[in-house]
């Protein structure tokens, strides 16, 4: 009896999950596909986004992502290297940094938005700009980058390090010639994961990079990310749903591609390590 009940619950739950998700994805495809075309991708929005496309929005998104990853990647990589290679000499500091990164990963995105608005936009005087938005996202992506890169460095077989030490290589040579090349797939996977997260983020951008839907001229211009565009079309623009759904489809497709690439990398990396 209990066997039967458990089986029914398990099949039922899985069926429900598949149905709900088919509904969600089907809805995005069904309402998004009619608005999607090459023209949509390469023309600028017009009439508050109801007409035209998303070219300037895509460009703005790329700029924001470039700032975010360009800042978070060097910082995250250096942090991961320190945690993996030098941290054991200062275990207290290592513990503090690890704990701080764990807490940072749990901070709600709207709080990043509050911080980014108050610190980057107001205190540093960057205003609503690509720079403010990108730097805010960099703070958000930092824990993921450090964790995934760190896991990659730690997965490098101990023999490799011991061999390098036995050969009398300096740590710099070991790192640049052995560890980083071995951990490269993890580094790429971490970067892609960070890009995926940043691409999905909306709440932290509304009050940092802002709403302006023109082509950005410099990093000090306010610009609208794709996710913010979807929000704006859905909530603030009557009749903007069609283009909102088309934009949502583009965003989901982009994130899907990034996730697939991450998976392929992670799988290749696990195979090469074992």
């Amino acid at each position, binding site marked *: 009896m209990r066997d039967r009940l458990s089986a029914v619950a398990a099949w039922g739950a899985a069926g429900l999950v598949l149905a709900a998700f088919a509904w969600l994805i089907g809805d995005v495809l069904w309402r998004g596909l009619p608005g999607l075309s090459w023209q949509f991708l390469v023309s600028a929005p017009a009439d508050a986004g109801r007409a035209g496309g998303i070219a300037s929005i895509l460009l703005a998104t790329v700029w924001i992502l470039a700032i975010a990853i360009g800042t978070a990647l060097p910082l995250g990589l250096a942090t991961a290297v320190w945690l993996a290679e030098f941290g054991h000499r200062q275990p207290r500091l290592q513990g503090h940094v690890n704990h701080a990164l764990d807490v940072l990963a749990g901070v709600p995105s709207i709080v990043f938005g509050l911080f980014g608005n108050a610190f980057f936009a107001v205190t540093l005087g960057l205003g609503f700009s690509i720079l403010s938005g990108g730097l805010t996202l960099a703070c958000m992506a930092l824990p*993921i980058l450090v964790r995934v890169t760190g896991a990659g460095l730690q997965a490098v077989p101990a023999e490799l390090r011991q061999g390098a030490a036995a050969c009398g290589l300096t740590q710099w040579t070991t790192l640049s010639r052995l560890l980083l090349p071995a951990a490269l797939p993890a580094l790429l996977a971490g970067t892609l994961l960070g890009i995926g997260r940043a691409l999905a983020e909306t709440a932290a951008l*509304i009050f940092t990079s802002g709403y302006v839907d023109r082509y950005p001229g410099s990093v000090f211009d306010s610009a609208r990310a794709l996710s913010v565009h979807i929000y704006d079309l859905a909530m603030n623009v009557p009749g903007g749903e069609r283009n909102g759904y088309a934009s949502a489809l583009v965003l989901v497709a982009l994130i899907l591609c990034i996730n697939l690439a991450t998976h392929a990398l992670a799988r290749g990396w696990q195979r090469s390590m074992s």
Partner: protein
Amino acid sequence: MSTPGRSSPPDGDAALRAVTGLAARLSGTVVVGIALFVLWQAWPALQAVGPLRFVTDAGWHPLAQPAQFNLLPMLVASVAVTLGAMLLAGPLGLFTAIFMTDYAPPALARLLRGVVELLAGVPSVVYGLWGLVTLVPLLAAWQPPGASLLAGILVLALMILPTMVLASHAAIAGVAAEHRLTVAALGFSCAGSLWGVLLPAARAGLCGALLLSTTRALGETMAMLMVTGNVARMPDSLFAPARTLTANIALELAYAMDRHRAALFVGGLLLTALVLALVRLARGLGCAWRHA
């Protein structure tokens, strides 16, 4: 760059250590900086209004004379949507994970996993769009106005389901294979081994899955902003519109000035405190905690 086999200058390692050490300290400081900065921005309100009035004022009327700053309706709404979503997504996610490990044919399990991973990546603004355009009108036809606590609960449940499924799946699949063989050898029934042995053995991971999903739900902004109706009043039924703490910040930060702005930061502080308390709780209960 040195050529392979040749060491860089002897002070290269010291420099490497110094630079990466600096980066590590900077990375560790980010979260402290955020906490202090949000506190600093909230301070004028905490000082001038006093912490007590954020729960005792007559309502949330930040622009009235005199201004009133009761955050309680938003706090209640946040907790209500989170609890409701967890009540739905918790068991559903757990059973889906059980299905994937113990019941599904391998091909179906792989398909399901792929679908769930895809959905874990769908941005919250897309869930919000779906909720706003598809779900809310359906609810409105049944129980107007549609944009309500219930809409928030349903969308949020769907949103955190992938997190719940993937984390519980990792926990259950992590229970050693020998465990399973022993249980089968002892002649336990399928359900008996599941409820008596496997789930208790996966306890730490499952509790981590629950609490991780809860923090995600509590911190969700966009989807809630789009489907709950955003009325800053104490919700009195499932079908009443409500405004979460997160949505309150997103709605008003654009035009808030002075004390009103500081009061929004108090909301952010409260939200962060709640999430950190949950993380603490997870640690205290010995839950396996894994962000990713």
